[in-house]
C-alpha cells in the first residue's frame, strides 16, 4: 500500500513530528522508531518550554505565598486545572483533582469509599465489580477494599476475541453492587469497553435508583478518544474518571481524578496535611472544599502547568483528528502484522473497534528476545505482562510484545516494525 494514500493520517504529520525533539534521536546511526506510547508518550517542545519557563520565571509555592511569584504560580497551576476541565468536558472545574498518577487517583476513590459512612458505606454482602482486562492499578485497590471491608469482588470476563463478555451483566450488576470500576480502553488488548451501557445499567440498580458508583480508568482512552463528560446523558456519565498526565504528552508525576461534585463532597478526605483544611485545632480539623480537600501538601506544580500545556496542544490538533490517525495507523499495523508468519495478535482485529495498543505473540521467540532484537534496530516496544497479568492468563499467555502508536507515528515506522520482526525471525533461525 502506498502510505501517502492512507486515509485518516494527520495531514501535517511531518510538522507534528518536528514538535517532538526526541524523535530525532539515533542510536549508532539507527533512527529511533518509538512504538511504546501506551507505556509513556513523548513530549512536544511546547510542554518542555512551558515547564522550563515556569521554573525559570514563575516558580513559587501556590495558594499561600503573598508575593508576585506566588500569585503567578497559583494562576499557572489553576490554569492547568482549567485545561484539564476543558479537555474532558468536566461539568465543573472544581471537580478536577490532581494526583500523582492514575494509580493514586484510583486508590483515592477506593480508599475514601472504604472509609465512607452512610449510604456509600461498603461492607459484607456488598459487591464491587471490575473486569478481567484491567491494569493492575484497577484491580489491586479493589482487592484491598473488598478484603478490608468484607465485601465481595466480582468481574466481567472476556470473550475469545478479546471483547468484554457482557452476557451476564444482569447477574453481575445487581442491587448488591456498590461500585463498578472499569477501563475505557484496554492497555493490552486495545479493546474499547461499552462505558455508556455499563454505566447506565450500574446507575439503575438499588433502592430508589441509588445506583452503583461507576469509576472509569481512562488512562488509555484520554490520549486517543475525544471525551466530553458534560455532553453525556447523566445516567450514562461515570461518577469518577481517572487518567495520567504522561500518556497524554504531559510530564510524569501528575494524574487526574475527575469526580461528580456531590460524591466528592460526601466522601471523607484521602491524605491529611497542608492545603486540604479549613481550620485546624489540636482536637479536630475541618476540611477545605473540593478540589483542595483531596490535595494535601504542596502539589506537583510545574507538572500541572506542563499537563495544561500538553492537553491544550492535543486539543489544538484535535482529538477527532488524533483518533482518526490512531485508527489509520492501527489498521495499517494490523495488516502488516498479519503478514508475519507465526504471529498472533491478542485482542480485536478491527481497527475501528479498538485502541492503538497491539499486543502479539510470535511463535518460537519470547517477547523479551523480540524486544531486544527490535531495540538493536532502533525500534522501542514493550515486552512482558504490561501490568495486566489476569488478561494475559485469560488467553493462556505468560507475556506478550506490545507496539503502541500515537499522533506522531508514521506508516514508515510500522514498516520498520514489520521488517524488524522478520529480522527477529531470521535472527532466531525461524526463517
Amino acid at each position, binding site marked *: 500500500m502506498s502510505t501517502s494514500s492512507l486515509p485518516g493520517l494527520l495531514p501535517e504529520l511531518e510538522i507534528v513530528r518536528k514538535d517532538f525533539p526526541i524523535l530525532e534521536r539515533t*542510536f549508532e546511526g539507527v533512527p529511533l522508531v518509538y512504538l511504546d506510547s501506551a507505556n509513556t508518550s513523548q513530549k512536544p517542545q511546547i510542554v518542555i518550554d512551558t515547564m522550563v519557563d515556569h521554573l525559570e520565571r514563575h516558580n513559587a509555592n501556590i495558594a499561600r505565598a503573598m508575593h508576585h511569584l506566588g500569585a503567578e504560580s497559583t494562576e499557572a497551576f489553576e490554569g492547568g486545572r482549567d485545561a484539564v476541565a476543558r479537555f474532558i468536558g468536566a461539568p465543573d472545574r472544581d471537580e478536577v483533582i490532581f494526583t500523582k498518577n492514575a494509580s493514586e487517583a484510583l486508590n483515592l476513590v477506593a480508599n475514601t469509599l472504604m472509609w465512607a459512612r452512610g449510604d456509600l458505606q461498603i461492607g459484607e454482602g456488598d459487591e464491587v465489580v471490575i473486569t478481567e482486562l484491567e491494569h493492575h492499578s484497577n484491580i489491586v485497590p479493589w482487592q484491598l477494599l473488598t478484603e478490608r471491608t468484607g465485601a465481595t469482588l466480582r468481574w466481567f470476563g472476556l470473550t475469545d476475541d478479546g471483547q468484554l463478555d457482557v452476557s451476564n451483566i444482569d447477574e453481575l450488576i445487581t442491587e448488591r453492587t456498590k461500585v463498578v470500576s472499569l477501563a475505557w480502553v484496554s492497555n493490552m488488548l486495545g479493546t474499547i469497553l461499552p462505558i455508556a451501557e455499563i454505566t447506565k445499567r450500574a446507575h439503575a440498580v438499588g433502592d430508589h435508583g441509588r445506583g452503583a458508583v461507576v469509576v472509569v480508568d481512562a488512562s488509555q482512552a484520554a490520549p486517543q478518544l475525544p471525551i466530553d463528560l458534560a455532553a453525556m446523558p447523566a445516567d450514562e456519565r461515570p461518577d469518577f474518571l481517572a487518567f495520567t498526565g504522561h500518556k497524554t504528552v504531559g510530564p510524569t508525576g501528575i494524574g487526574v481524578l475527575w469526580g461528580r461534585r456531590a460524591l466528592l463532597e460526601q466522601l471523607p478526605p484521602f491524605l491529611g496535611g497542608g492545603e486540604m483544611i479549613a481550620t485546624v485545632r489540636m482536637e479536630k480539623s475541618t476540611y477545605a472544599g473540593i478540589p483542595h480537600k483531596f490535595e494535601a501538601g504542596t502539589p506537583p506544580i510545574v507538572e500541572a502547568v506542563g499537563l495544561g500545556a500538553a492537553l491544550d496542544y492535543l486539543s489544538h490538533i484535535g482529538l477527532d483528528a488524533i483518533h482518526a490517525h490512531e485508527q489509520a495507523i492501527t489498521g495499517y499495523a494490523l495488516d502488516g502484522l498479519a503478514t508475519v508468519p507465526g504471529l498472533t495478535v491478542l485482542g480485536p482485529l478491527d481497527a475501528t473497534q479498538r485502541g492503538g495498543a497491539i499486543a502479539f505473540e510470535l511463535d518460537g521467540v*519470547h517477547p*523479551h528476545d523480540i524486544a531486544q532484537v527490535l*531495540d*538493536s534496530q532502533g525500534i522501542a516496544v514493550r515486552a*512482558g505482562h504490561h501490568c495486566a497479568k489476569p488478561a*494475559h492468563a485469560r488467553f493462556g499467555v*505468560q507475556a506478550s510484545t506490545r507496539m503502541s502508536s500515537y499522533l506522531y507515528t508514521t506508516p514508515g515506522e510500522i514498516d520498520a516494525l514489520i521488517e524488524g520482526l522478520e529480522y527477529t525471525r531470521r535472527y*532466531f533461525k525461524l526463517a
Partner: protein
Amino acid sequence: MSTASLDSLYQDIILDHAKRKLNSGLREPYEAEVHHVNPTCGDEITLRVHLDGDVVKDISYENLGCSISSASVSVMTELLVGKTLEEVEPIHAAFLEMMRGKGQVEPDEDVLEDAVAFAGAAKLTARIKCALLGWMAFQDASAQAQSDTQKETDK
C-alpha cells in the same frame, strides 16, 4: 544496541542452551522446592534441589521465560550438578559478581566455564534479572534443603 552487541548477548552457546534446556522437568526425590518470579516481566521458575550429603545430586526445574533466563538455568544445572556445596559456593558467587558488575567484571572462565557467555547480558540492566532468576532460585532452594537436612541430623 548495535547488531554486534546483539551477537555478544545471544551467543550460540546461549541460544543452544535456551533450546535444549538441560535437566528441565521436575523430578523426585528432592529436599526443597521453590517458586521464583520476576515481577517486572512475569517470568517464572519452579526449581527443586536434591542433596545427597553435601553433594548437589540433582537440580530439576520448570520455567517460563526468555532465552536468557532459560539458558542461564540450563547452564547452571550443567555446571553445579555433581559438585559439593563447597565447590558450588565460589561458582555461584562468581556468577553473581559478574552479573552485578555492570559489565566491568572480567569473568574467570576457569570458574564459570560456559556461564561466562552471560557477560553480555550483564551489560544490559533490563536483562540481569533474567539471567539471575534460576541462580537465585537455586540459592534459595539449596539453603532450605540444607536447613532441612540439618534438622534431620539434629533429631
